[in-house]
């Protein structure tokens, strides 16, 4: 086991809140997001997710909790053999829902993120920004209670970054708590929101 990346970190993410998670590269932003997303177990300490102690969540309960959390991975994690539409619909499909019950929602969301014309192409022909938007759409399709986005504007130019930010703000207005991990100061300056700064394994919060 290596050195502790995060220690004495204590915070909560209220429902419907909006915050940035920032700090230098290697400060542990991604690790903290993975802890929140339950894809990493803490070596010590307590994490409570939707009122439930992380260490008491069974493997069977895990998928049900994950469905309430939307994640945008830094490397997108789109499936290359599925079209943009199918990638975005994946969270609904794995729940066993009929395609006819969500087709309109998915198409609507894709148009909303500007991928209306790229719905039926596969990720290898999408640009970095388009992949980014597809990954965001996949995380949003279920209107999760909390959205965790790891450097969601890392691959796009500033105008598109602003548009994506507006997307997150809109989601937040609809009731989703949003955590955006970024080291893009320009992006953070555009919104008056809570800032969580990670540095040297410690977390400082500026409300």
């Amino acid at each position, binding site marked *: *086991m*290596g050195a502790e*990346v995060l220690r004495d970190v204590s915070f909560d993410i209220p429902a419907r809140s909006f915050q940035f998670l920032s700090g230098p590269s290697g400060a542990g932003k991604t*690790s903290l997001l*993975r802890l929140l*997303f*339950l*894809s*990493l*177990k803490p*070596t010590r300490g307590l994490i409570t997710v939707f009122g439930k102690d992380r260490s008491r969540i069974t*493997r*069977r309960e895990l*998928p*049900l909790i*994950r*469905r309430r959390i939307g*994640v945008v*991975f830094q490397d997108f*994690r*789109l*499936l290359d*053999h*599925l*079209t943009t539409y*199918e990638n975005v*619909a*994946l*969270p609904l*499909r*794995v*729940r*066993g829902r009929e*395609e006819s*019950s*969500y087709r*309109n*929602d998915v*198409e*609507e*969301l894709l*148009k*909303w*993120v*500007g991928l*209306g*014309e790229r*719905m*039926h192409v596969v990720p290898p022909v999408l640009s970095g920004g388009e992949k980014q938007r597809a990954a965001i759409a*996949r995380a949003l399709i279920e*209107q999760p209670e909390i959205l965790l986005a790891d450097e969601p504007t890392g691959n796009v130019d500033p105008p598109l970054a602003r*548009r994506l930010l*507006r*997307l997150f703000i*809109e989601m937040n207005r*609809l009731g989703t708590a949003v955590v955006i991990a970024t080291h893009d100061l320009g992006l953070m300056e555009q919104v008056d929101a809570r800032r969580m700064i990670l540095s040297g394994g410690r977390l400082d919060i500026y409300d």
Partner: protein
Amino acid sequence: MTDTTSGATFTEDGIAESEVALPRVRRRMAPIVPAQNVVGRALVSVIAIMTFLSCLTLGVVSLVRDTASVWEAQISREATIQIRPEEGLDMEAALESASLIARGFPGITGARIVDRAATTRLLEPWLGSGLNIDELPVPRLIIVTINEDYPPNFAKLREAIVSQVPHASLDDHRTWVDRLVTMARTTVAIGIAALVLMLAATVLSVVFATRGAMAGNGHIIEVLHFVGAEGRFIAREFRRHFLATGMKGAAAGGIGAVLVFLIVSFWSSRNLATPEADQATALFGNFAIGLSGYGGVALIVVVIGMLTAATSHLTVVAYLSDIESRQSDAG
């Protein structure tokens, strides 16, 4: 504002500037587990080849087993009385007398004297044609047909013939049958050993080829896991895909093997009268593998399909628990 069927209301924020009419013809959703790639095609080929070889081995073993039991039955159906020529022996009278004794014995259904012409034919390969059998001291034979269900007491029959007909002896083919049965059983045992090895090799290569094909799917399992798919769902998707792949390969191999049997069987029936076919028929019967042979082929196909599915299932389960355990190792 745009209303969606889920009740959410999205505000157009300028991203969706231009919309083109979407094609109304919608294709079916692509399978979650991607269709054939190079590794998948290699898996189908490996399964097809191994199934083909396994089915061939099974067919040959069942052929040899059937043939061995036929040999055994045919040879034990007959015995031979042999009368050696001696000075002053009336051969024809001795043959008649021995044949009468044999016919009257319980458990014997008939006795046929091999006549001069047939004896001459029998000796022709060694002594050439135009042979005058009376000039040579050639033993004569009586072929005795035995009731297989109630065989005679060979010791008593031998005693009766030897005591009443001078220079006669009875050969019940026991030594020959024993040797043949031993040989046939050895052949069948070797065949079964070969079949077991073949099936073991098939199982191993199918398992490893499936694992190889699964190796490229790790990222799919991971993404499905992260978008909230249950382990059962992921395992079912892969199982279904690999069952189809396995059955496709196994069916191709099984059909190939059945075709080989049908072609050889057809060939042997077409060439019944030729010396080559006679030789082959004498050894292997009529090349038919029978219902049990075809049943075995079908069983192998189904088992290999299920084996492929089970291997993919176990690989998914192992991968998921690996993701779980990595959670505590990383970071």
